[in-house]
C-alpha cells in the first residue's frame, strides 16, 4: 500500500487503541474524579473519530453533548456526591465489593469474550460496501427543504424519531424533578478568573448557538448542537455561582422549556386536521417550518440541559 494509506492505517489503529485504552482506564481507575476526566478525554477522542468517519454533525454533537455536557453533569454529580455523603449522617464506608464482584464475574467475563468474538465475526462477515439509504436520501433531498442530508433526515424524513426523542429529554427533566430535592449542600464558588471568563464566554456561546442553528440547514450543525451550546452557557452561568430562583418553575419559563415539543405537537396536530400525513410539510414551506422547529428545539434543549445540570426543581430548591 502507498504511504498515504499507511499513515491513515496507522492513525486509525492508534485512534482505535486509544479509544479502547481510555475507556478501560476510565472504567478501571480507582478514583472517581480520575475516571470522569478520562471519560471526558474519551469523549473528545470519539469526536475526533467522528470527524475521521466524515460525520462532522456527530462530532459537534459529541463535543457539545457527549463530552461537554455529560462531563459537566458527571463532575457536578461527583461534587454533590461528596457533599451529600458528608451531609447525610450515615457513614459512607467503602466495601470490598468491587473485588468480590470481580471474582464472582470471572465466568461472565469469559462468556463475554465469546460474545465479543461472535459479534466481531459477524461484523467482519458484512459486505464491504453498501449504499444503505444514501441514494433515497439524495433523491429526495431537494424536497426536504434543507441542504444538509443529516438535518433532512432528522427533521423531515425521520422527524417522528426526533419528536419522540425531544420528549425523552423532557421526560428526563420530569424524572429528575420528580425525584425531589437533595439535602442542602454547597459547591465551591468559582474563582474570579472563571467569573471573568464566564462574562466573556457566555455571550460567545449564545452567538455560537445561533450560528449552529442557522448553519444546520445547509452545513454541519443544527438544533442539537445549538441547543447544547446554549445549555453550556447555562452551565457556565451556574458555575459562576448564579442560581435559578423559584420563578424558573413558573409558566413563562415552562413555556420556553416546552417550546420544542409544543411546536412539534402543534405541527403534528395541524397536519392532522388538514388531512395530510403526520408531520408532512409542503416542499416549498418545508425549509422555514424546519427552521422554526429547530429554533424551538434549540431553546428547549438548551434550557432543559441547563436545568438537568442544576438538578432539583428550582422551587423545591427554594422550598427547603
Amino acid at each position, binding site marked *: 500500500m502507498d504511504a498515504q494509506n499507511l499513515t491513515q492505517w496507522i492513525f486509525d489503529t492508534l485512534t482505535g487503541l486509544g479509544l479502547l485504552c481510555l475507556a478501560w482506564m476510565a472504567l478501571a481507575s480507582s478514583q472517581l474524579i480520575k475516571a470522569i476526566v478520562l471519560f471526558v478525554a474519551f469523549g473528545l477522542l470519539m469526536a475526533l473519530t467522528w470527524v475521521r468517519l466524515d460525520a462532522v454533525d456527530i462530532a459537534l454533537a459529541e463535543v457539545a453533548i457527549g463530552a461537554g455536557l455529560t462531563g459537566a453533569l458527571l463532575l457536578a454529580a461527583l461534587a454533590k456526591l461528596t457533599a451529600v455523603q458528608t451531609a447525610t449522617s450515615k457513614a459512607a464506608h467503602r466495601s470490598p465489593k468491587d473485588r468480590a464482584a470481580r471474582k464472582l464475574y470471572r465466568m461472565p467475563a469469559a462468556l463475554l469474550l465469546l460474545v465479543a468474538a461472535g459479534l466481531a465475526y459477524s461484523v467482519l462477515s*458484512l459486505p464491504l460496501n*453498501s449504499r444503505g439509504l444514501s441514494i433515497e436520501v439524495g433523491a429526495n433531498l431537494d424536497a426536504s427543504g434543507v441542504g444538509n442530508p443529516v438535518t433532512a433526515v432528522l427533521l423531515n424524513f425521520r422527524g417522528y*424519531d426526533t419528536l419522540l426523542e425531544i420528549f425523552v429529554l423532557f421526560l428526563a427533566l420530569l*424524572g429528575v424533578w420528580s425525584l425531589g430535592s437533595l439535602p442542602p449542600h454547597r459547591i465551591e464558588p468559582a474563582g474570579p478568573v472563571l467569573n471573568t471568563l464566564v462574562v466573556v464566554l457566555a455571550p460567545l456561546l449564545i452567538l455560537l448557538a445561533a450560528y449552529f442553528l442557522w448553519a444546520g440547514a445547509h452545513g454541519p450543525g443544527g438544533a442539537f448542537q445549538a441547543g447544547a451550546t446554549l445549555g453550556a452557557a447555562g452551565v457556565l452561568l451556574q458555575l459562576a455561582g448564579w442560581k435559578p430562583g423559584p420563578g424558573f418553575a413558573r409558566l413563562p419559563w415552562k413555556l420556553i422549556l416546552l417550546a420544542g415539543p409544543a411546536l412539534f405537537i402543534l405541527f403534528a396536530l395541524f397536519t392532522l386536521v388538514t388531512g395530510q*400525513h403526520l408531520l408532512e410539510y409542503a416542499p416549498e414551506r418545508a425549509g422555514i417550518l424546519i427552521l422554526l422547529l429547530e429554533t424551538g428545539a434549540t431553546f428547549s434543549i438548551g434550557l432543559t440541559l441547563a436545568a438537568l445540570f442544576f438538578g432539583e426543581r428550582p422551587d423545591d430548591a427554594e422550598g427547603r
Partner: protein
Amino acid sequence: MEVVITTFPWEVVLILAPLFGALSCFLWPKSARYLALSTVFVSVLSVVALAIRLITTGSYRHAIGGWRAPLGIELLADGLSLLMLGVTAVVGLAITVYSTGYFPNRQLLRFWPLWLLLLAALNALFLSGDLFNLYVALELTGLAAVALTALSGGRAALISAMRYLFATLLGSMSYLLGVVLIYHSFGSLDIMILAQRVVQSPVVWSAMGLMSAGLALKTALFPLHFWLPPAHASAPAPVSAALSALVVKASFYVLLRLWLEVFPPGQTAMLGELFGALGVAAIFWGGLQALRAGQLKLLIAYSTVMQVGYFFLAFPLAMAAAWCGVLYLLLSHALAKAAMFLAAGNIIYFSGHDRIVDFDRIANQLPMTLAAFALAGVSIMGLPPSGGFVAKWLMVEASLKSGQWWWAFALIIGSLAAAAYVFKVVGHAFTQTTVRGQTNAVPALMEWTALALALTSILLGLVASWPLAWLEIGGMFSCESAR
C-alpha cells in the same frame, strides 16, 4: 360519519393525545387531573374508532411525513397492535381513575405528566413499524417506567428503580446493536421490507441473539427477571399495575413482531426451544417465590415473573393456536394483574401494610377489593370462566396437538401453583381475629375500579371469539384455522 371513522388516522391521535396531555399537565398542574382524565378518555375513544376502521377496512400503514419506507417511518395498524392498544387504553383508563384517589396530592402532580408520557410511549411502540423508532419508543417507555417506580421516593423504591434503570438501558443497548447489524446488512429499518429481505446469515444470528436477549431482559424472562420483583413490589400500586400489565408486555410485543415477521423461520427453532425451557424455569421459580412471599405486592410481582414464563412457552410450539393462546394470555393477564395490584393498593391504603398473614377480616372490611383480587386470581390461575382459561386451553391444546405434552404439563403445574398462592391470600382475608393498628376508609371509586378490571378479565372468558377474530386482522395468523 362512517367515512370519517374509516378514513381518519386514529393511530396518530393515539400518539399525539397523550403527548399533548403530558405537556398540558406539566403547564397547568392545577387542572392536571381533568386534563389527564380527558386525555385518556380521548384515547379510549380513538381505540374504539381504530377498531371499527380496522374491522371494516383491514390493516393499513401510515407513512409519516408522507415518506414511505424505507426512507421514512411507517406506522403499522393491524390486529396485533389493535389488541395491545385496546388493553393499554382499558387498563390506562382504570389506572388513571384509580390514581386520582390513591396518591397524596404532591406526588399526584408529578405522577400525571410521567404517566401520560408512558401511555404515549406504549401507544407509539404498539404502532411503530420501524426498528429504530421502536428503539426510541422503548427508551421512552423504560425511562418513564423507572421514573414512576421511583415516585414514592422510599429507600426500597429508589434502589429498585436504579436496578430497573440499568436493566432497561442494557436491554435497549443490546437491542440497538442488533438493529444496527440488521440495518447494515439489509439496508432498511422497516419491518415489512425486512420481512422480505432478511435471509439466514451469521449477522442475522448475532442480531437475533442481541435483540432477543435485550428484549427478554426487559420482559424479565427468567433468569433475567432479577430487577422485576423489587421494582414492581416497591412502586406505588397504580404504577405497579401499569408496569406488570403494560410495560412488560411492550418489550414482549416487539419480540413477537420480530419473531413472526423479521427473523427467518429456519433460524428461530433452536432459540425457540431455549425460550421454552427458560419459560418453564420461570414458571417454577416464579411460582415458588410467590408462594414464599410474605407481602402481597411481592407475591403479585413474582406471579408476573411466572406469567412471563407462560408467554415464552409459545415460541417452541410456534403454531397458530399457541400464538393466539399467548396473545389472549397477554390480554387477560394485563387486566387481571392490574386488578390485583389495584386491589393490593386498596388493602395497603386501608391497613397501611401488605403482610398477608395479617389480612384478617379484609373479607368483611373490603369485600369488593377481595372479590376483585379473587376474580383476577381465577383468571391468573386459568380456571373457567375467564380469559386465562381460554388462553390456557388454547396453549394446552397446541402442545398436545404438536405432541409436546411437557409444555402442557408445565402450564398445569403453573396454574396449580397460582391457585396455591392466590388462595393463600384469600384464606387469610377470611380469618376473623381482631384487627391491629388503625385503618382508614378506601374511596369507593378505587374499589370499583379494581373490581371492574377483574370482571373484565373474567368476561374475556365468555366472549373469546371476538378478540380472537380481531387478532386475525392483517392476517399474521388465523386462530380459527389453528385446528
